């Protein structure tokens, strides 16, 4: 099992793999899908920094302000101070990804949304319009199937599918392994399409430069209030399918107001992959990111 987050309970698969157990430098043992490429050469080095905050022993615990409820008559146990973030492991892998991508001058973004917001359609259209101007690769996250990676590959771009099995989000560890399979040249664009879910992906840093949240106008305009953590974690919101607005009662102004309540700094663009509206602005945003990431 991938013990970074427990996600998928060993069901995480990267395309073209079989199950394999291995041990990381930090002692983490887990099994995950593993790639055969002629011979069984398989090295992992993550160099994940230890989580901050060591631990110490204290026989009693006068140092913290909350009550310890011991069962009467039972001797209190030994206290072990932990002070460790639950996501420390994931954050360590995310930092390793971020360092690696920065060293290669890659611009990485993490696209998050509900299922059905049109992430893949938007990506396909964006890749077509970028027309090979930058080296580009896509990591696709879904619970099952490689349909999305196939849709991306149909454009001629390289893509790899990660199936999270029972997991509801991509984590930095699986993304790091998926990235190893890609051959992305320096100065390129790495597009990570997360599992369709507006809850958990907000908490899992993958090492990206920005989270981009996609909200389609066929959803409710109050989604930023319903799923505030995701909108707070994102730097850009793409309001998609705006070609459908004439047929809907979606209140754009209200939606933007809700998004800015949750995140006063969020940038917003209105786009339609179908009509092409707003695509130039979105692509210019990507190009700017690619240019700034280059060393």
């Amino acid at each position, binding site marked *: 099992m991938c013990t970074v987050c*427990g*996600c998928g309970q060993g069901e995480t698969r990267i395309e073209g793999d079989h199950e394999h157990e291995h041990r990381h430098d930090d002692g983490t043992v887990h099994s995950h899908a593993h790639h055969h490429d002629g011979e069984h050469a398989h090295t992992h080095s993550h160099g994940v920094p230890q989580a901050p905050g060591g631990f110490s022993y204290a026989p009693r615990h006068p140092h913290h302000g909350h009550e310890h409820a011991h069962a009467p008559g039972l001797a209190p*146990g030994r206290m*072990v101070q932990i*002070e460790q973030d*639950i996501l420390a492991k994931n954050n360590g892998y995310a930092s390793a990804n971020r360092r690696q991508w920065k060293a290669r001058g890659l611009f990485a973004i993490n696209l998050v949304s509900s299922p059905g917001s049109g992430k893949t359609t938007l990506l396909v259209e964006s890749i077509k319009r970028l027309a090979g101007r930058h080296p580009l690769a896509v990591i696709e996250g879904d619970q099952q199937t490689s349909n999305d990676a196939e849709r991306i590959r149909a454009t001629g771009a390289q893509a790899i599918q990660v199936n999270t099995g029972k997991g509801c989000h991509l984590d930095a560890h699986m993304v790091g392994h998926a990235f190893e399979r890609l051959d992305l040249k320096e100065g390129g664009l790495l597009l990570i399409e997360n599992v369709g879910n507006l*809850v*958990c992906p907000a*908490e899992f840093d993958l090492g990206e430069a920005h989270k981009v949240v996609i909200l389609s106008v066929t959803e409710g305009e109050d989604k930023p*209030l319903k799923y505030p953590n995701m909108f707070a974690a994102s730097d850009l919101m793409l309001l998609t399918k705006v070609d459908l607005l004439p047929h809907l009662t979606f209140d754009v102004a209200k939606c933007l107001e809700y998004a800015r309540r949750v995140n006063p700094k969020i940038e917003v663009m209105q786009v339609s992959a179908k009509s092409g509206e707003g695509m130039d602005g979105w692509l210019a945003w990507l190009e700017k990111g690619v240019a700034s990431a280059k060393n």
Partner: protein
Amino acid sequence: MSLAEGVLQIIEDHASKSGFARVKTVWLEIGALSGVETEAMRFCFDAVTRGSVAEGAVLEIVAVPGTAWCMQCGATVPVAERYDPCPRCGGYQLQVQDGTEMRVKELEVE
């Protein structure tokens, strides 16, 4: 569920490092503005710790209230949710300061 497994993994790491066989109590600090639903955490914690060193451990959740910096008031103000307005001026120019924690604070072990 993933977060509960993250908690268990931190516990197991420390169990192997510092040699304890059983965890009696686990203190978690969970911020009001974090993505953690405490009841769901309790349910998942019980499920994932079965058969582990933390089986049957009491989960004590220390709630950390949310606070934010209001740019208009120039003050730190309490907030219960991310989309709450500033309780002083009613504005939304808020930057969250506390309340996003998800930490394993300490363990009582034997």
